[in-house]
């Protein structure tokens, strides 16, 4: 086994770290930066470019510059959030055969797994140069609220990039590990993680060397990009009012607006006003037009994004309640993710938690540092530290009338195993179909489908007289296996739940081989 690295594969930026002689070190990119933009672009001659180089050419090549791929990974095109995202980005989002959301460029269709793999391969390569040894294994972080499909797709991206993904770690959990390893204290932490694309809140208790997640909640479609998007909307409609011209169909103008809005948003975190100046944004019969706003005030921007900030509260309240705690029992709030630099977000945090957050945290790097810490736990380097994580969603089976019967509740410490007994619903029923779902809704149709299997040859008995015991085993990496057993005959059927969509094992293998061949 070569070296194992910790990777924060973010919606907008990636960060990579290793533990060297007990201290975490962030690995710099080829350009010497401590984070790498999560951007992959395809050039005119079909070459793939990644990171800051891809970012630099994004304005001139908007249709083939893919950012925010983490929003698409493991999702279906029909998801309402995807539909909104699709309308907002200059690149084309299409449906794969199985309904997954993919990206279409002139070079063909790309799965989000392949695009993420391009990022991971670049990371692997600069990490190897820096460390001077082969990198074979990785811990990759994902939002705590990612479902099974999204996790598996992230794992597949690693495999395509030639990395053995040893653990998919939740980002807020990683942040707590990254924060606390050198602080040997017993404390209860809230980790408030607002990144480029997702929002997570995790309540965690540290007892000596044991890090125990108590509850987690969040919103997988609430992040910095949404703040940018609202600002872009405002600029677009102001421009329309003024010039009666829509820029919505112009990908180059949209790409320039996106970049300018992001910069303006960042500036407004430290200054009360900023300006946006985009000369020659489009042509009109009367000559070229410019988009210019001289005084965008912080207060105006905060008013625009108020609906987003309001959405932060509910998940926090739920997580605290699920942990069986009150706000007063929390010792510390950690702010993670670039968006927590925004004063309005910090005010909201204070309002919810009633206390000032820990200041000694670098919100861009702490997750990667935590991932590196988890690597050290798994290699045995940190022999006393252990992390007890939870499953963020309930897992259950479909029962009559399409209802969900939970077998493993959300926020259960993993690994775990639970059994539940079910009965047949009609006379002489000779088989049952076990359909497995993930989510909190009462009706399975509103939850995420994970997999199905059949237990057949049941004994002929009246309805309700045949008992089927269903066992869910959720391992430490969140992989679910389901077994069903007919109680009187002990006949069994089982399945290791492979996510419904995504890429097949063969596809992943072929893509990995292709990528290896390309890079020689």
């Amino acid at each position, binding site marked *: 086994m070569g070296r194992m690295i910790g990777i924060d594969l973010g919606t907008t930026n990636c960060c990579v770290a290793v533990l060297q002689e007990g201290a975490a070190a962030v690995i710099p990119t080829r350009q010497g930066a401590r984070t790498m933009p999560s951007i992959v672009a395809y050039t005119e001659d079909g070459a793939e470019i990644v990171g800051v180089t891809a970012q630099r050419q994004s304005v001139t090549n908007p249709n083939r510059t893919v950012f925010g791929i983490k929003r698409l990974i493991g999702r279906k095109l029909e998801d309402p959030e995807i539909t909104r995202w699709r309308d907002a980005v200059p690149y084309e989002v299409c449906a794969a055969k199985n309904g997954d959301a993919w990206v279409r460029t002139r070079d063909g269709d790309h799965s989000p797994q392949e695009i993420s793999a391009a990022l991971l391969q670049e990371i692997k390569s600069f990490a190897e140069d820096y460390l001077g040894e082969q990198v074979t294994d990785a811990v990759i972080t994902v939002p705590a609220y990612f479902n099974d499909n999204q996790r598996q797709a992230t794992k597949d991206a690693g495999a395509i990039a030639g990395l053995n993904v*040893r653990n998919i770690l939740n980002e807020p959990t990683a942040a707590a590990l990254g924060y606390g390893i050198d602080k040997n204290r017993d404390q209860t932490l809230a980790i408030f993680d607002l990144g480029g694309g997702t929002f997570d809140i995790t309540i965690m208790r540290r007892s000596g060397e044991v890090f125990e997640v108590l509850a987690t909640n969040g919103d997988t479609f609430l992040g910095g990009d949404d703040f940018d998007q609202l600002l872009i909307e405002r600029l677009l409609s102001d421009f329309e009012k003024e010039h009666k011209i829509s820029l919505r169909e112009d990908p180059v103008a949209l790409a320039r607006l996106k970049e300018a809005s992001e910069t303006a948003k960042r500036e407004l975190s430290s200054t009360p006003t900023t300006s946006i100046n985009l000369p020659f944004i489009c042509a009109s019969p009367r000559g070229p037009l410019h988009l210019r706003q001289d005084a965008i005030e912080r207060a105006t921007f905060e008013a625009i994004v108020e609906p987003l900030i309001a959405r932060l509260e509910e998940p926090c309240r739920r997580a605290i309640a699920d942990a069986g705690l009150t706000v007063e029992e929390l010792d510390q709030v950690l702010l993670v993710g670039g968006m927590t630099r925004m004063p309005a977000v910090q005010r909201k945090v204070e309002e919810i938690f009633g206390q000032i957050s820990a200041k000694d945290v670098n919100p861009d790097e702490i997750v990667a540092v935590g991932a590196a810490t988890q690597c050290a736990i798994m290699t045995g380097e940190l022999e006393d530290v252990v992390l007890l994580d939870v499953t963020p969603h309930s897992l259950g089976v479909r029962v009559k009338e399409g209802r969900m019967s939970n077998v493993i509740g959300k926020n259960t410490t993993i690994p775990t195993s639970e059994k539940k007994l079910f009965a047949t619903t009609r006379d002489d029923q000779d088989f049952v179909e076990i359909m497995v779902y993930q989510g909190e809704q009462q009706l399975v149709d509103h939850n995420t489908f994970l997999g199905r299997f059949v237990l057949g040859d049941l004994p002929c008995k009246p309805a309700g007289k045949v*008992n089927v015991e269903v066992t869910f085993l959720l391992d430490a990496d969140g992989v679910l296996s389901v077994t069903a057993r007919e109680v009187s005959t002990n006949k069994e059927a089982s399945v290791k739940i492979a996510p419904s969509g995504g890429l097949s094992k063969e596809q992943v293998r072929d893509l990995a081989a292709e990528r290896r061949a390309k890079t020689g």
Partner: protein
Amino acid sequence: MTRSGGSRGAGVAHDLYCEIEGVAVTLRAEDLSTAGFFIETSKPYAIDRELDIYVRSSVGELFACGQVVQVVDGRRARAESRRPGFGVLFTTLEDDQRAFIGLTLDALTRARVLPPKAPSAPTPEPPSAQPPPDVASVHPPKTPSAARPKAPVVAQAAAVEDVVALKTIAAELRNELTKLQGKTAWTALGIEADAPLLNAKEAFLAASKRFHPHKFARHNSAEITKLATEVFIAYKRAYDVLTKLAPRASHMQETARSPQRPLASIAPAAQAAAAGAAATNNSLRPSGGRPRSR
């Protein structure tokens, strides 16, 4: 699997003395754990053979019985490019005997850490570079265990990426599992029946540190991960019984009265099994004697 050459301090062999059936043999610290050991030899005992074992180290001595559970004869050794010899599992080992082995390994590890760190060269050392072994051996040792000086006993054996070493870890986990099976939640966690819940928590967290599957990730063994998962879950269950289920006894009675929802089938229609039956069938371990349902 790559084999890296490493140091086996020349003194180590002398710090550990072993006799099997009254005959002196070479037992290496890397090949010893609290579950059993591996003896490298070209003339292994037959499988299932019961053996009298004597071990002496700087910490003391041990008389024990063991059984041959694995035989690697010359042909198998060549075919699988590993060392010839035989693996022995201790049949019964008292707590103080286990402690003796743990202390012995600790002492030997410390002895090995003191001299300058061994080079972990990627190429195997030539056999001549090693001290002449008592029993024929031409294979270089594996991963130098000096690389993980503080590893606990369970991890110690794993430094040797050897089938037997993995087997002994698996055997320890299996022992742990058997040990847990007959116990109540209280005895599993080793606390008094009237102990405060805080003690249960401490016991569970201590067990987590030892048995969480990630603690065994480096072995890359599906079997060990599975066993560790089972042991962890057994402790977690005991902890849940004490902390979650017991205080909610009234809640439990309530759920026992409500009917269990039946599993949807292809055909529609009716009737639910009584949750009473469900509850008895749901109890996984006899230990707590309490039904589990969510």
